[in-house]
């Protein structure tokens, strides 16, 4: 439908009012189904007892601010990236470090096979490195540049195989890439500002992913069509982290507005806010425990708060880091979680048995 230049102003005005009325209708439709709060439904569930977490391992090899980490599916290895050009793979006692050509390596991810890692940052790219633990081999030499954005890379994730990577960027877009050819398979436009995070839906729930950005929006995308299928705009500041609930029916977000929130995809709305008046620093990173009952969130005030997802209450505060917590992931088998911080360390914690 072409816009007739002569009637531009009328068309603009009528489009604007149509957009406003559609937004109003969307809110109305969502509100109609808001018959109860999650914590009310959860009143009958047993409350969680006190639990104590212990730091099992503190990894100090970076020597600089840790920005991102990811677990390997074999649960024994971790990849992490830092402010000064480095990515590290840790397995048991051994650490293997690679020097990157850019500072602020903001994103890193393990390939599902465990045979490669992807990372990137201020170089605007996402590169894949096949992993070798042979100290004589130069990992950097085998690097493959896969993604090219027009601004920093904020997040990356392999899809279900080593063959495709999903990226998020400060250029406001997300993109899906073929690793082998470096070809752009799909791009995702819709965020009004930098995209800071993404998470893929658990494989059983199909081909979608969620992204969060500086526009305060969380958006759910269809990977095949490139279409945004649902959008949520209830945060009051940048969304730093998004993570799917293990069943795939919901996702959590952490934001600079000092809250974490839970959005249910089938109810199409925010269903819980995890906040306290005493928490005034932004949440940088969130992840669920295996059953979805616990939400671990790392904050810029150096702490990790553990939330009861159903009841909305905080069940524990974890101290130990000496600077912002920048990244946090629960291990694939759910037995431990790892947090990375600007204090140069990574800490692996589990329940004190």
């Amino acid at each position, binding site marked *: *439908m072409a*816009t007739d*230049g002569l009637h*531009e*102003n009328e068309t*603009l005005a009528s*489009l*604007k009012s149509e*957009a406003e009325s*559609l*937004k109003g209708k*969307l809110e109305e*439709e*969502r509100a109609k*189904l*808001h*018959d*109860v709060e*999650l914590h009310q*439904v*959860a009143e009958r*569930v047993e409350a*969680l007892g006190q639990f104590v*977490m212990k730091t*099992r*391992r503190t990894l100090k090899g970076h020597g600089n601010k840790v920005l991102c980490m990811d677990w390997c599916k074999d*649960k*024994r290895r971790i990849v992490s990236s830092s402010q000064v050009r480095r990515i590290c793979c840790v397995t048991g006692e051994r650490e293997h470090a690679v020097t990157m050509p850019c500072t602020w390596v903001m994103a890193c991810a393990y390939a599902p096979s465990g045979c490669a890692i992807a990372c990137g940052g201020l170089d605007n790219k996402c590169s894949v490195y096949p992993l070798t633990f042979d100290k004589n081999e130069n990992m950097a030499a085998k690097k493959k540049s896969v993604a090219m954005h027009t601004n920093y890379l904020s997040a990356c994730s392999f899809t279900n195989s080593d063959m495709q990577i999903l990226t998020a960027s400060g250029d406001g877009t997300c993109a899906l890439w073929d690793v082998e050819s470096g070809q752009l398979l799909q791009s995702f436009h819709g965020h009004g500002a930098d995209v800071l995070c993404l998470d893929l839906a658990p494989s059983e729930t199909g081909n979608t992913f969620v992204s969060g950005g500086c526009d305060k929006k969380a958006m759910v995308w269809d990977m095949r069509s490139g279409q*945004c*299928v*649902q*959008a949520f705009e209830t945060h009051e500041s940048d969304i730093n982290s998004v993570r799917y*609930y*293990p*069943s795939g*029916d*919901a996702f959590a977000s952490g934001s600079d507005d000092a809250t974490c929130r839970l959005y*249910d995809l*089938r*109810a*199409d709305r925010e*269903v819980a806010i995890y906040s306290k008046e005493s928490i005034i620093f932004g949440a940088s990173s969130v992840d669920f*425990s*295996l*059953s*979805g*009952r*616990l939400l671990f969130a790392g904050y810029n005030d150096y702490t990790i708060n553990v939330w009861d*997802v*159903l009841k909305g209450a905080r069940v524990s505060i974890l101290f130990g880091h000496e600077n912002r917590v920048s990244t946090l992931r629960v*291990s694939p*088998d*759910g*037995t*431990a*979680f790892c947090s990375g911080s600007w204090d140069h360390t990574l800490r692996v914690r*589990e*329940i*004190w*048995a």
Partner: protein
Amino acid sequence: MSSGASASALQRLVEQLKLEAGVERIKVSQAAAELQQYCVQNACKDALLVGIPAGSNPFREPRSCALL
């Protein structure tokens, strides 16, 4: 800001909002019940919730141990 660009951007916004308005939704009570059911069903497997037997920690020396 050129009017031509903003008109087509608004057009896209209107189309996007129509798409989002058309999403099928369920009641929060039903959605909440299902989230809760998932938690309860999987609670026993959640090591960070219930604790794990000593010796299953992947960061200690490797031992074979069956975990739920």
